[in-house]
């Protein structure tokens, strides 16, 4: 139980996907202009991330490796993610049109979000078993959603007119992300 907690803390805070691992930065800087967009994107990604990690683990361990086709893993994972995104979209549309309205437009974007693939690959690199892979994915996804929400809040002040011209737009976004990442350095050692 305790190590589950530690794994989650590590994935959410200490080794935060975005701020420490550098994964999922495109949506982080791209879809955080509005809070509700950011949170919806975070949730949609979280879903695909968790499912993707689980399915990929199974496919890799029980299909690719026995067939000695491990080197096809990138191709397979990318298609797992893309199919999941489509499946999820269809499923959501049928089950809950409301949810579909909220998440629908973000789903296609997730295919090129490297965080999803990154989480799968990291789980594999660290030799996590199935349960830990899924747990790690849940934690990473939660960390992703958390910083999406935080950053969306911060962006209001980044529209301040007094920001020096050279810093407007991307530079100030990056500096702010840097300071946020600096703040997250404080979690170093937590749960270790």
């Amino acid at each position, binding site marked *: 139980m305790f190590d589950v907690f530690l794994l989650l803390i590590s994935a959410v805070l200490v080794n935060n996907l975005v701020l420490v691992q550098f994964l999922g930065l495109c949506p982080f800087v791209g879809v955080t202009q509005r*809070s509700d967009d950011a949170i919806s994107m975070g949730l949609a990604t979280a879903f695909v991330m968790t499912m993707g990690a689980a399915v990929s683990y199974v496919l890799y361990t029980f299909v690719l490796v026995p067939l000695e086709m491990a080197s096809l893993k990138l191709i397979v994972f990318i298609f797992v993610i893309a199919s999941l995104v489509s499946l999820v979209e269809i499923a959501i549309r049928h089950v809950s049109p409301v949810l579909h309205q909220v998440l629908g437009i973000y789903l296609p974007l997730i295919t090129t979000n490297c965080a999803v693939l990154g989480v799968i690959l990291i789980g594999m690199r660290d030799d996590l078993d199935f349960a830990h892979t899924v747990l790690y994915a849940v934690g990473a996804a939660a960390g992703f959603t958390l910083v999406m*929400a*935080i950053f969306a*809040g*911060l962006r*209001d*002040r*980044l529209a*301040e*007119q*007094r*920001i*020096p011209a050279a*810093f407007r737009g991307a*530079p*100030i976004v990056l*500096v*702010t992300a*840097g*300071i*946020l990442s*600096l*703040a*997250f*350095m*404080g*979690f*170093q*050692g*937590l*749960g270790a």
Partner: protein
Amino acid sequence: MARTVSSRSTPEIMRIVAIALCPGIVTSAWVFGEGVLLNVAVAACLGIGCEAALLRLRDQPVAPTLIDGSALVTSLLIALALPPSTHPLLIAFAVGGALGLGKHVYGGLGANPFNPAMVGYALLLVSFPAQLAAWPQFEGGVDQVTGATALETFKHRGGATVSDIWTAANGFGRYGVDGFESINAAILVGGIGLVAMRIIDWRIPAGVLGTVTLLAAVTYDGGSSASLGSPAFHLTSGAIMLCAFFIATDPVTCPTDARGRWLFGALVGALIFTLRSYANYPDGVAFAVLIANAATPLINRLEYRRVVAQ
């Protein structure tokens, strides 16, 4: 409009905050020697020079903005957070980081989302952690042997009990005479002055100190070696008072209304306790404040409301 009531202006507020830091500075100098005053002098000069340079770089009028005094407050807080006689280049790094990256890239006074002093301090701490651990061995205050502060000893307490740490650690006189307790007490005095003058909102220090006390009390087991420290230990060590009264209260970077401020104070307190107890850097203050700053817009948004029933 012209002022019709004698409320204090922003520059006056900044000056009063700087003055309220003086008991802390003096006590710190008494405890750790004149190296503290050197820090303060260097930081203040660098801070004002840096602010002027940045204003010029931004094509802003220098003189009127310089006298708003916020750069001075930033510099003094940095000076107090550093070990005595820190190398001027390191101070320059922190002050430059604070005013440049922490404040002026966002457009100067009032526009920054993060506490500038803590941005500068954290940049320095992460870059030169060894140099920032160099607090002088404190007995007599002169001999410049470095030693672990109580918080570091606490961090890696091995078999030591809380009271071992208290008596053994550098700068701890256990209630009273010398060390971090007296510095924290002096800062508390200045902080209470600010509360009394209504320059800071009492809810923030109350939230910070209350949460730290509460968490420490709940987890306190009588002081065994596995304890996370007693409430008294947490309330007298490190930068806790500085944080509660001077840092977390920076109006620019904390929420604007009462409920938000309670929440913010509690968040800072909980983070300090957690980071002190479990994370790598000994005093989690800077990181706790920066993280809470990041949450401030969200907290404020909770409060975008009308009190009136619609």
